[in-house]
């Protein structure tokens, strides 16, 4: 006991000296803080990165496989424009001309390398003995009715068009613009493409008001990420207002509000400086950092201010005395809670998703600075500002509140065993439910229906084609081997098998080109609509066909330079991530079971990369979460100076997360990558409640000599209100984040809201029950001593 007391006295003395120093040199401290914040802030540089690649670490195997495929063929991103004429028929002279003109204009898109449309589709036919390859509809305005009818018949029979560029009824068509972004500065390149495409669409709509235009694709996806980041950054403003209001309500003091505002602003400025110094580019997950810091940092200030004002109002201390006393009492708790929060956020580095590394590091830095400013700038400012202590008129209402917490305490104390059992049963049930959640990282569903990208993409999925795809690069094992009839037959069989799968919308395989050319080489005889059965024929037909293709519409995106591999692109309906992974695997297995070894290939695509992202993040975060739990439990043991209670604290710290995911299973049942981080993050936050409650309990036991039941009631009376208050502040912050249109942020915030509420309930019901139940033996041991 003496040793413990010594440590405590030491830390108390340190806090007191710190407070006295800060108050004495208040102007120096304030100016130094200002210089530090401004200095860091001046290094600030907010740049955004919308490229979807940011979600994947350099070593991500799915990204590596996809990059390898793109390097073999062409590296391309796309914009798909979907045109729906109001007359529900694409095949009129005016509509075809409009499409033709827009296609021509689309070639001017920055970084474009290819434009695929209905009109410039390279239609292959036999003319006499010759192969004829030409645009499906060129100079459409000169076409006659019968020619347009012929174009329609040809188009609707064309497997490369239907369900990709044209819907089955011929009422909706698409223009697919392939862009090859240099990838040097996505913050410049992507907006450049987007701005051009948006203007092109606007001009087109003006000229052709009978067309509806929707756009999607990887570039609009990147733009949507971009814009989500900026929107979520704007949430900071709302949170700032909430902070002002909350602080004012809780402290009822304008100077306290100003001081709090200064602390949080300094913290954010520092964090912005950190972003600039580290060269971090903001992404949707990391762009919420100011709101996070605001939410978490304000708690530190509020604790210090409320104690100070209480000491002035209730105990009638002078401002300086109250401030010193508040600092002495709060220094350690604020330090401990900041430390656990920082640990929680830093564990995000264990994950495999770089934007969350940034979020973790920026917030951890911001929280460190928030601790520093709360213990320097805040007391200095309060010492300078003319804070007056009002009379003790509030006492009456306070007693009512205390009574409420006392009642709750008495309620718990009466039936600890029963409450423990009920709690554990509920937690057990919800834990079971939590396992029923499934990962789903469908990147389209990252955006809610308020985002145009989402509604446009949904429209395209409903009316024309799928947005998700999987690609296989299928090798032949020899140079020029794609013309080997054996290879072509197997490829054709794979294409057919894919077509039969219910989730498949469209298949683009080289075997289709081989069939089509073979038919045209035989006078358009349908019997020859099959792959050639002689290698020389196949190779020479291909040569002829390639010589006939125009600029930008070549086969280089489908055949590698050595003509040893071809690319199969499968377009899939909107299915969940788990189904997507199953499907890709099914394709891989089919190749393994039905084709020779060189043709075995793995499925890759951005869709698949996102599908596996959640699983990968969960796997990699697992270790991080365990480490966070151990570290935070150690901090607690140190803070409480009690091994057993430190161990016991694991229960109220871990169970809220289980409860959270259990409730989530009832609410949505699907979790995404953004939610994987909440364990470590919320652990760092909710542990504060446990620390406060347990430390008051221990103080009552050690210093006041209360028994366990009395100590629990004491804890309720002293920290009950503080816990409710900080929980409310946290809820406000995360509730604001949960309005984000971006699901990685909004889901993460929503489950955090659930977890924080659960944590409070558990700390008020299960924790005290457990404290009473485990203390019984303790008492007897102590009595023996």
């Amino acid at each position, binding site marked *: 006991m003496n040793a413990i007391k010594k440590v405590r006295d030491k830390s108390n003395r340190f806090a007191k000296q710190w407070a006295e120093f800060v108050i004495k040199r208040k102007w120096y401290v304030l100016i130094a803080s200002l210089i530090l914040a401004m200095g860091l802030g001046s290094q600030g540089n907010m740049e955004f990165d919308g490229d979807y690649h940011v979600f994947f670490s350099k070593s991500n195997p799915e990204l590596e496989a996809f990059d390898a495929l793109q*390097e*073999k063929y*062409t*590296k391309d991103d796309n914009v798909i424009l979907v045109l729906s004429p109001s007359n529900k028929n694409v095949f009129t002279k005016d509509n075809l001309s409009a499409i033709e003109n827009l296609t021509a204009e689309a*070639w*001017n*898109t*920055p*970084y*474009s*390398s290819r434009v695929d449309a209905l009109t410039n589709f390279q239609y292959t036919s036999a*003319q006499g*003995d*010759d*192969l*004829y*390859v*030409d645009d499906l509809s060129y100079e459409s305005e000169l076409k006659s009715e019968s020619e347009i009818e012929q174009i329609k018949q040809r188009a609707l029979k064309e497997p490369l068009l239907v369900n990709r560029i044209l819907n089955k009824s011929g009422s909706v068509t698409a223009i697919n613009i392939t862009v*090859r972004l240099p990838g040097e500065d996505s913050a410049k390149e992507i907006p450049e493409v987007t701005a051009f495409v948006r203007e092109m669409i606007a001009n087109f709509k003006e000229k052709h008001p009978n067309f509806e235009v929707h756009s999607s694709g990887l570039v609009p996806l990147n733009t949507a990420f971009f814009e989500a980041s900026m929107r979520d950054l704007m949430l900071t403003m709302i949170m700032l207002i909430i902070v002002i209001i909350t602080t004012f309500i809780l402290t009822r003091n304008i100077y306290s509000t100003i001081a709090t505002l200064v602390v949080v602003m300094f913290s954010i400025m520092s964090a912005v400086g950190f972003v600039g110094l580290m060269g971090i580019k903001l992404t949707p997950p990391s762009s919420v950092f100011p709101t996070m810091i605001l939410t978490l940092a304000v708690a530190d200030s509020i604790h210090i201010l409320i104690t100070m004002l209480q000491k002035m109002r209730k105990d009638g201390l002078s401002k300086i005395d109250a401030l010193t006393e508040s600092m002495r009492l709060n220094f350690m708790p604020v330090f401990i809670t900041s430390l656990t929060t920082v640990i929680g956020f830093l564990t995000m580095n264990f994950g495999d998703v770089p934007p969350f590394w940034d979020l973790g590091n920026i917030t951890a830095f911001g929280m460190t600075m928030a601790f520093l400013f709360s213990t320097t700038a805040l007391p200095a400012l309060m010492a300078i500002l003319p804070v007056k202590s009002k009379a003790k008129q509030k006492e009456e209402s306070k007693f009512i509140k205390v009574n409420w917490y006392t009642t709750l305490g008495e309620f718990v104390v009466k039936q600890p065993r029963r409450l423990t059992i009920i709690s554990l049963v509920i937690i057990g049930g919800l834990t079971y439910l939590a396992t029923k959640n499934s990962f789903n990282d469908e990147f389209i569903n990252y955006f809610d229906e308020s985002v145009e990208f989402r509604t446009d993409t949904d429209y395209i999925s409903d009316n024309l084609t799928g947005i998700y795809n999987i690609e296989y690069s299928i090798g032949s094992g020899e*140079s*020029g081997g794609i*013309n080997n009839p054996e290879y072509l037959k197997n490829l054709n069989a794979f294409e057919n098998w894919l077509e039969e799968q219910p989730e498949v919308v469209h298949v683009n395989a080289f075997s289709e080109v081989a069939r089509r050319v073979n038919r045209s*080489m035989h006078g358009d005889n349908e019997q020859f609509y099959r792959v050639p059965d*002689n*290698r*020389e*024929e*196949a*190779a*020479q*037909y291909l*040569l*002829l066909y*390639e*010589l*006939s*293709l*125009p*600029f*930008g*519409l*070549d*086969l*280089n995106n489908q*055949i*590698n*330079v*050595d*003509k040893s591999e071809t690319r199969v692109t499968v377009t899939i309906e909107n299915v969940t991530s788990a189904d997507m992974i199953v499907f890709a695997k099914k394709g891989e297995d089919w190749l393994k079971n039905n084709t020779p070894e060189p043709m075995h290939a793995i499925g890759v695509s951005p869709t698949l990369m996102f599908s596996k992202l959640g699983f990968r993040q969960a796997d990699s975060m697992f270790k991080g979460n365990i480490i966070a739990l151990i570290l935070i439990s150690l901090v607690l043991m140190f803070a409480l100076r009690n091994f057993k209670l430190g161990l016991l604290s694991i229960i109220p710290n871990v169970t809220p997360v289980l409860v959270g995911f259990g409730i989530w299973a009832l609410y949505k049942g699907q979790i995404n990558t953004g939610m994987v981080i909440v364990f470590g993050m919320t652990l760092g936050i909710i542990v504060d409640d446990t620390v406060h409650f347990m430390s008051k309990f221990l103080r009552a036991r050690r210093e006041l000599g209360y028994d366990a039941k009395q100590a629990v009631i004491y804890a309720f009376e002293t920290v009950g209100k503080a816990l409710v208050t900080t929980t409310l502040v946290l809820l406000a912050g995360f509730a604001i984040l949960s309005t984000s249109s971006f699901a990685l942020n909004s889901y993460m915030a929503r489950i955090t809201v659930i977890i924080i509420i659960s944590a409070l309930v558990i700390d008020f019901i299960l924790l005290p029950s457990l404290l009473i139940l485990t203390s019984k033996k303790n008492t007897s041991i102590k009595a023996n001593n």
Partner: protein
Amino acid sequence: MKKTIITVVALSIIGFANAQTPEQRGLDIAKAAEKADLGFNSSSVQLKMTLKNKNGQTSERSLTTRTLELTEDGDKSLIVFNSPKDVKGTSTLTFTHKVGSDDQWLYLPSIKRVKRISSNNKSGPFVGSEFAYEDLSSQEVEKYSYKFLEEKNGLLIVEQDPVDPKSGYTRRLVSYNKNKGYRIEKVEFYDRKNALLKTLTYSDYKLYKNKFWRASVFNMVNHQSNKETRLEFKDYNFDVNLTDDDFSQVALKRAGN
């Protein structure tokens, strides 16, 4: 106001009339280059084509090219594939025309048939390489409009805009070497959106018959896809004495066998 405009226009017309316009000078340079190469009659050459993608994976083809010089219309050429094996013997016969699109035939030994390539698409890549057909075909003066841009270290840089609306390019910047019989040192290709697409560099020039400059290496780099194609020429022969008969469909069939 109107008067001023008229005056300005009039003055500029007079100005242009005195000095040579950039357009005229560009055309003159192209014509000088054509003239410098006049009179080679016919030639044959062996050609190795190496395709390289971003990863450095390569693929080779070897060809033989024969050319017959014509003055009243564009040149005729015959290209025979020697490898890869599965296209060995495949040959193309091309009649370039000063005006209008070229005629082109392909002989397919596997079916022993000559097929006319009737498409007017001449801007696609030649056998998967970074060369478009239009980069390799005979460079007739009439196929472009010209504008002289500048002279730099003895190189005359001329902008050439293709006349064919189906061309893949908006313009090319061609560097002529004034001191070396107006041979071309470098061509930069700009795509339809006027972004730099490719650069073709000619190197290892040799002078044949004391008059005709021929580069031994053509290197085409695509700046957008980072792919590359290298052509290496060897065994230039200006004494083959080919005639019209060597550039007929019958000759095409024969060449392939």
